[in-house]
């Protein structure tokens, strides 16, 4: 299987604070990876750096996507190459309805004019799958959405944009039991042999329906351990102390 993402020895800082310290990660096409790690370890920062958030400065190392060095690319260019980030805390955008926004994004991605009715139908079906009230399509993007509704809105955006690599940053946090099931079904439906997932989670429930290829422990801005899905169970029972202890 061929390589999709490669993060090579990345060092990154924000506000002169070193957050990533020589981080390495490789994801092949079709794989599902999970990242776990204590609060403040740098997990969201890693996603941000892969997505191209200018708030984080990469001082050393490189990010490759489908073999191409994308370290210097802006976020929109990366998105158009097929990278997607479901935000831990999605932004609210007053004045732009969810439907209009998705339509602009889709048209922008494909470069094709869009058939409004067909798109509306597609959107309605996706929202049904995610147990979202169709009225949300005409609400302003994430404005006044509850925490869980915002996460569903992120997954909806992922389903509309069909990226090659979807990074999900704590998409399950803030979701009730039923919502986790609905969302993880949505993720399962999205997943195929060609696209890949990078999932950050503190909770194994969202992973239940998925075939996990690798689990990484991120600590102090680096991946300190990589193993198979059995690592999730170990973290859930014993916490990070053991793993981190070996590192220190």
């Amino acid at each position, binding site marked *: 299987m061929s390589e999709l993402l490669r993060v090579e020895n990345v060092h990154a800082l924000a506000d002169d604070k070193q957050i990533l310290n020589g981080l390495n990660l490789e994801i092949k096409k079709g794989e599902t990876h999970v990242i776990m790690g204590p609060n403040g370890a740098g997990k969201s920062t890693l996603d*941000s750096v892969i*997505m*191209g*958030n*200018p*708030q984080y400065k990469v001082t050393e190392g490189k990010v490759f996507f489908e073999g191409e060095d994308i370290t210097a690319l*802006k*976020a*929109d260019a*990366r*998105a*158009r190459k097929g990278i*997607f*980030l479901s*935000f831990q805390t*999605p*932004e609210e*955008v*007053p*004045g*732009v309805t969810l439907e209009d*926004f998705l339509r*602009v*994004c889709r048209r*922008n*991605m494909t470069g094709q004019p869009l058939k409004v009715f067909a798109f509306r139908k597609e959107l309605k079906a996706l929202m049904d799958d995610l147990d979202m009230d169709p009225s949300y399509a005409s609400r302003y993007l994430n404005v006044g959405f509850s925490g869980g509704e915002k996460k569903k809105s992120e997954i909806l*955006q992922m389903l509309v*944009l069909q990226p090659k690599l979807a990074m999900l940053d704590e998409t399950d946090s803030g979701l009730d039991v039923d919502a986790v099931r609905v969302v993880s079904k949505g993720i399962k439906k999205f997943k195929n042999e060609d696209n890949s997932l990078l999932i950050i989670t503190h909770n194994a429930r969202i992973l239940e329906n998925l075939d996990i290829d690798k689990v990484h422990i991120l600590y102090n801005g680096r991946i300190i351990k990589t193993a198979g899905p059995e690592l999730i169970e170990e973290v859930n029972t014993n916490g990070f102390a053991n793993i981190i202890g070996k590192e220190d």
Partner: protein
Amino acid sequence: MNKNTGLSVNHLPVLTWNHIGINEAQFPETELAEVEFDACYEKSGFGKEIAEIFDNIETGMGAEAVAFTMNHCTNPIFIRVKEGEKKVIEPLKYTFADGAKVCDVTYILAEKNSEVSVFQSYISEDDTASYHAGLTKIVALEGAKVTLIQTQLLNDSSLHSNDLGIKIEDSAKVELVQAELGAKMDYVGCMALLSGYCAEFVADTIYYGDEKRKTDLNFIARHTGKKTVSNMKAKGALFGETDKVYRGTIDFINGCKKAKGDESEETLIFSDKARNRTIPLILCDEEDVVGNHAATIGRINENRMFYLMSRGLSENEVKELVVRASYESVLSRITDEEIRSKVDSYLERRMIIE
């Protein structure tokens, strides 16, 4: 009148030392044939009593602008909506070409419990320097509802002044919706006198500053009636070397008990060379009132920019999306299809930026 500097307009209701230089503004005059406005008036059929009400209405730009526009009036328009009637007036569309000069004076009288909607649009058809001075006065009698929608898309060499004087009586409501998007000088003055019990005034204005445009806005809501309500919003985006002044005054006059006034301004700034000055004033000559001022001025929040870019929109596309979003409440009110599509293509053309 000072011939060198032009008309003195858009005065703050009180002179303030710390706003020296922008306590008022100047708007040029132009050469135009003089007319006797009274002759136009006679044809209106308004009658003496009503004419007097209109004559006494103060405007936002002030007496010099009123005198100039009336004395050079090219297009007098009188709209009278009878008691209980409901009317949508045929759109008043002014197109400017070959250096056209227009001074339009529009008087709108909404009688008791009537409803009227008026639409004015000012658009350039070529690149020549045009001149527009508009004066619109509105009298809303008891229980009347007036909606005035205005769009302005003049070219970069044209001068535009838009002067409004509004009187709102018992339980009447006037709503002003403005898209002020073009011209070399874009000057707007609006004075709403809320004289009746429970009178209501709403203004929603969008402006667009780019290149060297000078935008000068002066809004005053003067509350004299009890339980009167005003809400004035201005939203705009500034690019290039544009220079914008916004004066927003809520003037609570003694006796306007339980009156409520809100004013808010949202300014998105996209250029270091753009100049933005805002003077919010709340004058309280009455204690039993509530006045609010809110302002959000600045650049697009960087988290929001990253969020939207992560969905594949370029920086410029995000800017356009965000500007359009802030304009949405006004744009959605421009239902005339021809004008709406001109507004959309104007914005699209102008926002290919930096």
